[in-house]
C-alpha cells in the first residue's frame, strides 16, 4: 500500500487516446513528491520510483516494459479502464487483437478503472487511500428508479424529453448501471445509458448480459421445433425481437471488459485497431464511443461522426447547435495547446468548459441533431437544440476525417479515421 512517504511518482502512457495520461496533469503540483511523466515508456531509463502509474491499454509487447516498471516501483497503479482491462479499445479483441491487463504483469497493481480516469481517486491512491470494497453503486446515485419488472420490448433510443424518473432498463433501454460504481463522468445524467467503465463487480459483462436477458423475459423470442416424433421446442438461431433490440451484445455489455471476460475473437481484422473497435457497433453508440476513445481529438472525431450521418440522412440542426459545436471544436484546440505546454491550469479550465457544453469529458450530452440534456446557461429553449431520434439507414457516410458504412440494422461494417490510428 502506498503511504504518505511517497517522494516520486512516475506516470506512463501506453497505447490509448491518451486522456487518462493528460488528466494526471490535474494532480496537485504542490505535493511533496516529484512527478515525472513518461510519454514513451519503452525509452524510460528505469530510475527507481515510489509509485508508477500506468495509463493506456497494454498489449503483449508491453509486458517486458511493465515488468521493468513493476520491478523498479514501490507500487504500481493502473489508472483508467484501459490500463485495467484495455477499456473500449478492448472491443478490438473480437477481431483478434491481444491485450494485456496490468495485473497480469504487475500482480499487486492497484486498479482504478474509469473512463475518464478520475484524478482525485489517483491522488488518494498515491496517498495510500485506494478505494475499498464495497464500492458505492451507480444506481444509488441515479435520479431514476428501477422496478426490475419484466420488459415486453427493447428499444435502442429514447426521446430525451420524456420521463425523467424511470430507469432506462425499465423502458427497455439497456443501461449497465446495475454493475457499475458511482463515477465522476456519470453519463446517465446526460440521458446516456451507463456502459460500466467503472465496474462494481467482477465479470460485469456476462453478469449484465444475464441481468438484461432476465429483464427482457416478456420480449418475443423465436423458437423452432427440434424435429422427429419426439420433437419439442428449441431456441431458434435466427434473429428475433431480442437480438434486434440488442444487435451488438459485445459493444453494449462488454464495452470495457471484452478481453478479460471472453476468448480472443476470430472475426477478420481490418488491421487498424480503431477500425476494429468501431466495426460492429450500433450507430447510436458511436458518439459516446468516440467521446471516450478519441483522446485529444475526441471532439472533432465525435462531431465528424455525427455530422456525417446528419448530412447523409438529411438531419438539420439549428444555429444554436452549430454554435455550441463550433465552441467545442475551439475548446479542443485549446486543450491540445494546454497539454502541449503541460499547463495544468489551462487544461483544468478548458475541461470545465467542455463539461459545461458536452456534459462530461466523454461528451455524453452530444448526439445526432443536438444535445440530449439542457446546457447550463443556454438561453434558447431545449427544443431548439434537443437531440433527435435517428432512423437507421444503410449507406456510407463521410465528413471531415471520418468515413463509415452502416448495414440495414444500423451497425458499422467499415470505419476509417484519417487523423490518428
Amino acid at each position, binding site marked *: 500500500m502506498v503511504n504518505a512517504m511517497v517522494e516520486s511518482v512516475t506516470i506512463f502512457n501506453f497505447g490509448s487516446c491518451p486522456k487518462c495520461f493528460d488528466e494526471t496533469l490535474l494532480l496537485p503540483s504542490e505535493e511533496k513528491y516529484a512527478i515525472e511523466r513518461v510519454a514513451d515508456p519503452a525509452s524510460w531509463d528505469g530510475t527507481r520510483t515510489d509509485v508508477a502509474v500506468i495509463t493506456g491499454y497494454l498489449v503483449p509487447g508491453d509486458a517486458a516494459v511493465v515488468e521493468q516498471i513493476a520491478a523498479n516501483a514501490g507500487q504500481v497503479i493502473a489508472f483508467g479502464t484501459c490500463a485495467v482491462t484495455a477499456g473500449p479499445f478492448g472491443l478490438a479483441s473480437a477481431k483478434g487483437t491481444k491485450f494485456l491487463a496490468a495485473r497480469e504483469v504487475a500482480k499487486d497493481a492497484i486498479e482504478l478503472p474509469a473512463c475518464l480516469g478520475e484524478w482525485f481517486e489517483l491522488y488518494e491512491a498515491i496517498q495510500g487511500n485506494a478505494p475499498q470494497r464495497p464500492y458505492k453503486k451507480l444506481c444509488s446515485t441515479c435520479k431514476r428508479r428501477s422496478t426490475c419488472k419484466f420488459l415486453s420490448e427493447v428499444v435502442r433510443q429514447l426521446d430525451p424529453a420524456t420521463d425523467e424518473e424511470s430507469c432506462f432498463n425499465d423502458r427497455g433501454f439497456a443501461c449497465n448501471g446495475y454493475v457499475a460504481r458511482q463515477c465522476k463522468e456519470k453519463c446517465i445524467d446526460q440521458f446516456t445509458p451507463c456502459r460500466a467503465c467503472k465496474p462494481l463487480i467482477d465479470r460485469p459483462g456476462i453478469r449484465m448480459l444475464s441481468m438484461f436477458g432476465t429483464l427482457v423475459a416478456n420480449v418475443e423470442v423465436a423458437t423452432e421445433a427440434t424435429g422427429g416424433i419426439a420433437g*419439442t421446442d*428449441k431456441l431458434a438461431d435466427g434473429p428475433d425481437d431480442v437480438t434486434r433490440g440488442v444487435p451488438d451484445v459485445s459493444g453494449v455489455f462488454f464495452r470495457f471488459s471484452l478481453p478479460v471476460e471472453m*476468448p480472443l475473437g476470430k472475426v477478420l481484422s481490418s488491421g487498424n485497431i480503431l477500425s476494429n473497435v468501431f466495426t460492429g457497433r450500433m450507430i447510436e453508440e458511436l458518439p459516446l464511443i468516440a467521446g471516450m476513445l478519441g483522446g485529444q481529438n475526441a471532439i472533432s472525431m465525435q462531431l465528424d461522426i455525427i455530422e456525417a450521418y446528419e448530412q447523409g440522412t438529411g438531419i438539420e440542426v439549428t444555429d444554436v447547435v452549430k454554435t455550441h459545436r463550433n465552441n467545442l471544436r475551439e475548446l479542443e484546440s485549446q486543450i491540445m495547446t494546454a497539454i502541449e505546454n503541460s499547463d495544468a491550469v489551462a487544461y483544468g479550465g478548458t475541461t470545465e468548459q467542455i463539461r459545461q457544453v458536452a456534459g462530461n469529458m466523454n461528451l455524453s450530452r452530444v448526439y445526432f441533431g443536438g444535445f440530449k440534456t439542457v446546457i447550463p446557461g443556454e438561453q434558447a429553449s431545449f427544443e431548439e437544440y434537443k437531440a433527435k431520434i435517428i432512423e437507421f439507414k444503410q449507406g456510407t457516410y463521410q465528413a471531415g476525417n471520418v468515413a463509415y458504412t452502416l448495414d440495414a440494422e444500423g451497425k458499422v461494417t467499415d470505419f476509417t479515421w484519417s487523423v490518428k490510428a
Partner: protein
Amino acid sequence: MNTAGVARMGYDTAIKIVPLQCSGQANPQLIMDALKDGADAVGVIGCCIGACHFVNGNMLSMHRIKLMKQLFKELGYSDQQINHYTARAAEGETAVGDFEDIMARLKRAEHDGTTLPEGW
C-alpha cells in the same frame, strides 16, 4: 432425463448431466465457466414453454442464452455451442432427442472450425 434413464435409453457418453432445479438457474456465468473448464458445448434443457414450475424460469434462460448466442457470433464463434431446449418429463425420448441435437450441432461447429479455443 430420469425417465430416459429408467427406460434404459441410450445416448452419447460425452453427455454430462448437471441437474438444476430449474433451467432458469443456468445463468450465463455458469455456462461460460463450463465452457472455460472444458465443456465443448452446453445445452440447457428446461420445461416446455408454459409449463415452468417456477412461472417462467425456462423463458428467462432462453432469453439470456439468445443474447449469449449473439455474443458468440459477434466474436466469430459458432453459436451452436450453447443451445436451449425443452423436454417433457414424462417422455424420456424428448430429452434424448435434445442430446442428439446437441451433439450434431457441436460436430458441425467442430467441422467448421468455429468452436472456442481450448484453455482460453
